[in-house]
């Protein structure tokens, strides 16, 4: 266990695969910057892998003051045990005050392993991170400058703020797309600090037998306009209407979990807590009830249009424009109106 270090750095785990940085650490870096500036400490980034030194520049331009580079052939492939060992060794050596990871399959595999080894607190799937204080009434003590780890809980029906007062570093994972990615600043400078991996071949207990990656068929995060269909669309064939409106608007097609589970559209198009989090300029929700897990993935959209036959559907609570009606009637009207103006 590590003594809490209020001068400790704010760290971001820089997830990468095959020499490509994931978007999440870059998104997290922006928030890490805000938190670190408030605390008056540097932002550090942990970059593990083999031949990954060229990625350090990008981390610096997105906000890292220091990149702890652990470059070793034994780290070429992610593995729980080897990566956790490196991360924990660095934590013991440098005593950061917080460590943020993306809540990706890698992050969710690695973070709890590190938290357990360091005997520190970890909060998963945070939707917001702030600096705040916590009053411990039982011990009659107020702790300041803590990381407030905010996340939905209880099936998404409540928002909980979690704190970790002394089992540091304070660890948290954040899903992709939740924090906006700030533009990089090539003028920024930072240090690259090479650290030894301290990993032996015997630490690699797993062997990768086979791997299958599918490139994503749609880039929802980059779409300015998304037309999404839900259970109300009714069938895979009828999803053509959603596609037609998306085409007319130059937008991308999205779907709720219900639509994906129903086979109307592929998982790559899923918007929501277990799909992709999006913040387009315009989100048109057609036949989507607006369950909290779906809302979590799109409620930051600049403008939301909801089309649903049920006036009590929760989606209307977050919509800017609401049309209570049948999407089979309304969508053709929208397509007509858009085409008439262009």
């Amino acid at each position: 266990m590590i003594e809490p270090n209020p001068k400790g750095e704010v760290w971001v785990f820089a997830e990468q695969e095959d020499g490509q940085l994931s978007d999440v650490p870059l998104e997290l870096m922006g928030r890490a910057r805000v938190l670190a500036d408030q605390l008056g400490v540097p932002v550090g980034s942990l970059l593990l892998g083999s031949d990954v030194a060229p990625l350090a520049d990008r981390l610096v331009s997105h906000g890292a003051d220091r990149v702890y580079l652990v470059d070793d052939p034994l780290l070429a492939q992610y593995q729980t045990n080897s990566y956790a060992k490196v991360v924990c060794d660095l934590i013991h050596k440098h005593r950061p005050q917080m460590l943020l990871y993306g809540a990706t399959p890698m992050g969710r595999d690695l973070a709890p392993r590190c938290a357990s080894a360091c005997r520190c607190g970890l909060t998963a799937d945070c939707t917001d991170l702030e600096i705040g204080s916590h009053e411990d009434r039982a011990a009659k003590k107020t702790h300041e400058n803590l990381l407030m780890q905010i996340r939905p809980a209880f099936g998404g029906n409540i928002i909980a703020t979690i704190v970790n007062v002394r089992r540091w570093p304070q660890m948290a994972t954040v899903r992709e797309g939740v924090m906006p990615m700030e533009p990089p600043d090539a003028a920024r400078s930072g240090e690259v600090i090479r650290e030894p991996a301290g990993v032996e071949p015997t630490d690699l207990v797993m062997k990768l037998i086979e791997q299958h990656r599918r490139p994503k068929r749609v880039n929802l995060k980059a779409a300015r306009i998304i037309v999404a269909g839900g259970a109300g669309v009714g069938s895979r064939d009828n999803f053509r209407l959603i596609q037609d409106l998306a085409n007319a608007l130059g937008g991308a097609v999205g779907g709720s979990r219900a639509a994906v589970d129903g086979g109307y559209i592929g998982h790559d198009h899923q918007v929501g807590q277990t799909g992709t989090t999006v913040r387009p300029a315009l989100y048109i929700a057609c036949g989507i009830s607006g369950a909290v897990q779906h809302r979590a993935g799109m409620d930051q959209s600049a403008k939301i249009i909801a089309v649903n036959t049920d006036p009590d559907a929760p989606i209307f609570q977050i919509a800017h424009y609401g049309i209570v009606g049948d999407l089979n009637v309304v969508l053709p009207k929208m397509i007509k109106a858009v085409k008439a103006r262009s």
Partner: protein
Amino acid sequence: MGYRCVVLVKQVPDTKKVTGKAMNDDGTVNRAALPAIFNPEDLNALESALRIRERYGGTVTVITMGAPAACDVLRDALYRGADRVILMTDRRAAGSDTLATSHILSCAVKHQGEFDLVICGRQAIDGDTAQVGPQCAEKLGIPQITYVEADVELNDRTIRARRGVGNGWETLEGPLPVLLTVTAEANVPRPPAARRIMRCKRARAPIEMRREIDEADPDAPDDQKQAAVEKRCEELKANGLLIEQVGLDDVSADLDWVGLRGSPTWVNRIQTIVLTGSGYKSVEPTDEGVAAMVHELIEDHTIG
């Protein structure tokens, strides 16, 4: 060959059925309004273990940490085919976060005996953290394979498992013992078997037995009641129907690392989600209504 599987399960409120009545006015959860269920992905974990036993032989032991009411999920596990079920119950464990929970559960796993696989559901539907599995693996000092989405292959002391990685999958090979976390994609859990329900519905933990005896004969002296509990438990045990029960002291848990005070993370605040629903512009589902909306969106450069 035979593999000793230990499955970690949790009884959770059915968060998918939350209605307005589920939250009290002060923001706390009205647990009485929510039915308690077997955490869905833990059923997949149990199914994985049962399939391993069917294919390779061995035993399936199920452990849950919870209040005595959690015996319901242990009975459910018996109905589906578990060989041995254990309740870890102790008031001092209340308020445990994932780190404290994984400490207690890993002590319970070590206490129950040798094992080859520890199998967990990926995550519970109340906490939604997916942390307890990997944290238990670290505490048990064994490797982990998370997000297992298919049947595993075992060969002597080697396991092969396919895990989902978001935009694809990978197959890993590793040594036993190992901890797996299993997703809903991995299998379809078998239902309880009628024959097993008939046989195992009498299964009880000592604490449940004590409550039944208290209710049946509240005025009897304590040592008489205790003797009755022990006798009934002996009978159940002889029939393979005793739900084993352990507390923190039985499994040598470190009390500094359990319960609320032993947890690194604490709840600072809880807010119920209240949607104000005041904001939307109502649009008629007519040509005119829709055209007017589209016009506005073009004017403010949202479209085009």
